[in-house]
């Protein structure tokens, strides 16, 4: 039996009838139409599908849409504000934190949570906190630099 769910994504309210087995990532991409959230592995490993659910970074390929009923969601499409890149996005631009860009939305949302929890992380802390996000291109060095750039910018330095 289908279920009615209500969620807020990037500040906009949505309400849909969904099958209980619909994964949250498919809901976001195929029902709502926000395709910035990627599916990399589909097996909870790669983090390409990372979003913030009530402020927590989660892999939405490993969650049902019905579990998210009532939640506030932030996806990559909601990270820039008023046409201005978020400092984390700017960091990835300035420090070449991406090549193909497939992992980038997930990386940015994982970094978003990290900088909320720890505004001035060490390099080791950044690497440790990206354990749930795989990148096949960059070798991670520039991703770390991008996040360091963002941390400095957000601290007003």
């Amino acid at each position, binding site marked *: 039996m289908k279920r009615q769910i209500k969620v807020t994504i990037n500040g906009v309210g949505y309400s849909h009838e969904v099958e209980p*087995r*619909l*994964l949250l990532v498919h809901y976001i991409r195929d029902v709502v139409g926000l395709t910035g959230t990627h599916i990399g592995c589909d*097996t909870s490993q790669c983090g390409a599908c990372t979003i913030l659910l009530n402020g927590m*970074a989660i892999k939405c390929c490993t*969650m049902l849409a*019905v579990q998210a009923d009532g939640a506030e969601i932030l996806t990559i499409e909601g990270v820039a504000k008023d046409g201005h890149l978020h400092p984390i996005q700017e960091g990835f631009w300035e420090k070449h934190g991406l090549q193909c860009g497939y992992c980038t939305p997930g990386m940015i949302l994982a970094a978003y949570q990290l900088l909320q929890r720890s505004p001035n992380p060490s390099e080791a802390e950044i690497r440790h906190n990206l354990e*749930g996000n795989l990148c096949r291109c960059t070798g991670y060095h520039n991703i770390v630099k991008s996040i360091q750039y963002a941390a400095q910018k957000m601290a007003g330095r």
Partner: protein
Amino acid sequence: MYPAQFEYHSPASVQEAISLLGRLKDDAKLLAGGHSLIPMMKLRLAQPKHVIDIRKIPGLSGIKEDGGAIAIGALTTHYAVESSSLLKQKCALLTETAGTIGDPQVRNMGTVGGSLAHADPAADYPAAAIALGAEVVAEGPKGKRTIKVDDFFKGLLTTALQPDEILVEIRIPSWPVGTGMAYMKFPHPASRFAVVGVAAVVTADGKKVGVGITGAGTKAVRAKGVEAALSGKTLDAAAIKAAAEARSPQQGFLANEFSWR
């Protein structure tokens, strides 16, 4: 990949969830953080006809001191354990263990109760729970009962929980001030599950010792031989080496059998 079809239930209380379990029996699965169950459902290794979502039932998460023990609600996430200042102060073994599970995203969703109830032979908490001498509180149609951790893990993905019982709380007895505790894990490079993980708790006077091992068999076990070889000894290099060799012979290493991890 997506799961086979199922009916979704979201009971508002533990009692309601228990009566659903009683009615739907083997066709039903509880859903907590979903980070073991949903991957299995996507692979169709699990195809429950009914899924009972308990994640939003109030009162089942949180960490508090309760009559000399520390009580951890079943729905407490790995992240809440990892970042708990009460646990850092009173039971650092659990914060350390929680911090080694998966990655930050997994720790935001996965729950203590889900991990213990799932009883993955490579899960991290079981080793810590055994070393600490934890108790598991289960609630069923006849009320609550307490299960000692040594009686809880029965085998591969099997526990002492009855089909109509819900794990509601984990209780950690208090250990004296100055007790040393540590969890060391050899993580699988891809999944980060423990190829083998060892938790050890030793009081300052060396008399009381708890050692739990995960990943090395079909279920986590108490390393009784190691405990006996350590207790009451001065912990110098020779004593520790002798203790490490005292693990019981049946504790072979099954890493090859579990290559899917």
